[in-house]
């Protein structure tokens, strides 16, 4: 008998966390990438304009992360998610909060100021009638996030920021794959992505 999508989603999430912990040693690259966001390797000689541009790009990323946090909050409070799915959604939301923290630290280390969340966000609430709608909505946001990071990585002047953004991109891609799987879609629809 096939498993319920929500069950599958929850198990995938739990297994992912378990595997992450077991393989933490193998993830030193990602950890290092995030560590770079603390500013330890910021080039003191980078031009002011280049730094200002990096700060703007980081703040744009923070804006999208704040939106994701708000979207997951909307989903969590919708009453449409089964308990197991809710746990996964809250877990993903926690990742986005961690991204905001890391990106904010990077901005501060560059002498900038991180943008706050907006007071309100517009979402297609009228289209969210059942759990599947919420999952599809979240999947769309995650897919967009992957694309946004993919297109931002090449424009950072500081390549350490590109590395860190790539680490975040990988996390967003895993969210997207898990959500697609829960929707009964091919979790990895192609070899390339834009």
């Amino acid at each position, binding site marked *: 008998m096939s498993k319920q999508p929500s069950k599958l989603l929850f198990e995938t999430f739990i297994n992912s966390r378990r595997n992450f912990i077991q393989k933490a040693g193998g993830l030193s690259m990602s950890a290092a990438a995030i560590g770079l966001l603390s500013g330890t390797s910021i080039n003191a000689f980078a031009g002011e304009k280049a730094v200002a541009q990096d700060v703007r790009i980081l703040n*744009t990323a923070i804006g999208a992360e704040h939106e994701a946090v708000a979207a997951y909050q909307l989903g969590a409070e919708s009453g449409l998610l089964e308990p197991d799915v809710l746990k996964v959604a809250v877990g993903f939301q926690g990742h986005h909060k961690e991204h905001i923290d890391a990106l904010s630290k990077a901005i501060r280390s560059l002498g900038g100021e991180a943008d706050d969340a907006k007071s309100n966000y517009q979402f297609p609430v009228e289209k969210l009638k059942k759990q599947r709608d919420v999952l599809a909505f979240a999947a769309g946001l995650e897919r*967009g996030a*992957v*694309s946004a990071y993919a*297109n*931002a990585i090449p*424009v950072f002047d500081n390549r350490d920021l590109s590395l860190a953004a790539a680490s975040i991109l990988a996390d967003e891609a895993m969210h997207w794959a898990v959500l697609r799987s829960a929707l009964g879609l091919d979790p990895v629809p192609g070899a390339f992505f*834009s």
Partner: protein
Amino acid sequence: MFFRRKFPGQATLLLTLLICESVLAADADREAGKLAYNQCIGCHSFAYHRTGPKHCNLIGRIAGTAKNFEYSDAMHISRVVWSRETLNDFLASPLTYMPGTSMGFIGVKNSDQRMNLVEYLVHQSESDQCDP
């Protein structure tokens, strides 16, 4: 004729712009443009502002002037008017075309893909879902 006689330079420029716009539109593949728009959905939608401004009624709009959206100074003072041509130039490399923009996006380097994206943006931004 009057226009051409009175303003010969402007007439030529206008004609050139119209031809450029027509050429850009003629070969574009809107369905391919819809796929290319996936590169935008992290920050934009047609109907409402997100991290980036909404795309409804984009054509003919002066950059940085959509209501209730906080733009970068660069976008705000640019006075660029969005058209097929300006979108094509901007999307090739936003940070080069408009230094200081918040749009941290490398650009759509493939000219065919960019033309398709522009055509999709033009079509959708004027569609029923975008009625003012």
